[in-house]
């Protein structure tokens, strides 16, 4: 049984159907990418999974739980962490407090503090700025904080929405390095990316979205050589 399973899921903004009848699975241990042009419905899909939004129809299950039956704060407790588009760090709280709140669902304070120290080792710039308000961090630092904060809940599945958006190429590479490393440590990842080439190189499987629907899917290595995908999304 897949860890995450979407069946014929549709999501609307009022009368506008942003996601139409999509089916998608993520197996435990995978990195799966979701690519597609601006406005294709990628963010909406992630928002439906973490239950920031209520899907109109279809089914949505994670690790044996029906996610349609619960609200966003419960989805986290089941083990899904969402690092949303535009980072959404808590600008008026410190880096340390953002991380602490990332572990809101946990009660093991000694372990939480140990995890925060590990985050500072993994993201040294966050460690240097631990007392600073998150709103004063640079874009790259905020992205790292958003990822670190999501990890603080010790998720089974991490949803990442455009972690490379607006970042310098060297930081983008750093972030993809971290994604692979996390996956090697056992975190399953569903990644939404504009940088399709890099995303496909870094993932096991890829779904391609177009105007709210999934148009192609398959192992990333195969799709990356598929003429149609190549033409439409990889600029060649």
């Amino acid at each position, binding site marked *: 049984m897949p860890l995450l399973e979407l069946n014929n899921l549709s999501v609307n903004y009022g009368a506008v159907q942003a996601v139409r009848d999509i089916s998608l699975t993520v197996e435990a241990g995978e990195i799966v990418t979701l690519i597609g042009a601006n406005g294709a419905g990628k963010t909406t899909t992630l928002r439906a999974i*973490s239950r*920031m939004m209520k899907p109109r129809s279809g089914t949505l299950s994670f690790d044996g739980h029906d996610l349609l039956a619960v*609200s*966003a*704060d419960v989805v*986290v*407790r089941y083990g899904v*962490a*969402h690092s*949303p588009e535009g980072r*959404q760090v*808590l*600008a*008026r*709280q410190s880096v340390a*407090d953002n991380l*602490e*709140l*990332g572990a*809101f*669902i946990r009660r093991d304070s000694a372990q939480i503090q140990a995890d925060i120290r590990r985050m500072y080792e993994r993201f040294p710039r966050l460690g240097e700025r631990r007392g600073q308000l998150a709103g004063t961090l640079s874009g790259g630092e905020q992205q790292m904080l958003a990822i670190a*904060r999501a990890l603080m*809940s010790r998720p089974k599945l991490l949803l990442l929405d455009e972690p490379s958006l607006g970042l310098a190429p060297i930081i983008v590479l750093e972030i993809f390095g971290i994604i692979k490393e996390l996956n090697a440590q056992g975190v399953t990842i569903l990644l939404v990316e504009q940088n399709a080439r890099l995303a496909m190189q870094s993932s096991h499987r890829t779904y391609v979205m177009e105007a709210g629907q999934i148009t192609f899917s398959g192992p990333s290595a195969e799709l990356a050589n598929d003429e149609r995908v190549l033409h439409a999304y990889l600029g060649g």
Partner: protein
Amino acid sequence: MDLSSFLQNVLNGLAIGSVYALFALGYTLIFSILGIINFAHGAVFTLGAYFTYTLISGQFENNGLLKGVNLFPNGSPLAGSAWGFALSALVGSVLAGLVAVVIERLAFRPMRSRGADPLLALVSSLGVALVIVNLIQILVGAESYSFPDGIYGDLPGALLFKLGKKTIIIRTVQVIIFGVSMVLLLILGLVIGRTRTGKALRAVAENPGTASLLGISVDRFIVITFFLAGLLGGLAGTLVGSSFGIAGPYFGVTYGLKGLAVIVLGGLGSIPGAVLGGLVIGLAEAFVPADYSAYNQAVAFALLFVILLVRPQGLLGKLQIQKV
């Protein structure tokens, strides 16, 4: 003005100002979370005073459904000792907090879950305020109620200090009001600033969507906020009522308006601002000469007007271009 009357005014101002702060903080908490003013807060203040009165006296006058009722024919067990007063104030305030939670359910949550304009919740809270005021009137009539004598037990009624030839009077009530308010404000500041719950509360205030992604139940924290706000409002009502009496069901209306002046003066959504605003208005009123005390109510708003001309964001408020 000589030194002793100056000091006397400062003491009076701090005492009443600290109640304003306590009361106004209820507005601030709810405003920080929902971005709207809870117009039923003044009614909760009133209810707090009546609840505590009921516990400590239980004797009702000649109007309303409860006319002539005396809950404690042999005197309330809570009357006559400082601990009894503390306990009835606590229970009265907790009950007020619970009423605030019910108000959230009835007037705010239905609007929120339908995505209605926040202005509508404001109007529905105003409706709830009227309902509460009328219910009080139906139950116990429109007359004023005084707390029984000696509710502070063995504590002396006032402390007198000689300063030269003059005497400064510190009423026990004032010390209680100031002490209780300041301790509560301090505790609240620590809870909101330092604890996990406080951090989560601030997360909900800053961005409810993000807060829910972290596993924070936004609805639950809204309930907690309303409870705290109602508790503070009810306690403020209790303190004022026990000191000056309950002036009838509309008792809280003046305080409700003054509380608005306090939070705008201090800076909307700012907790230190509510405290500072409360103290400033309390002090300003205390310095109104006795001959002009009829204009007491105008002082808060005149002060507000002048300060907003200079600092439109209030004393400690940040200029908000837009809500994030």
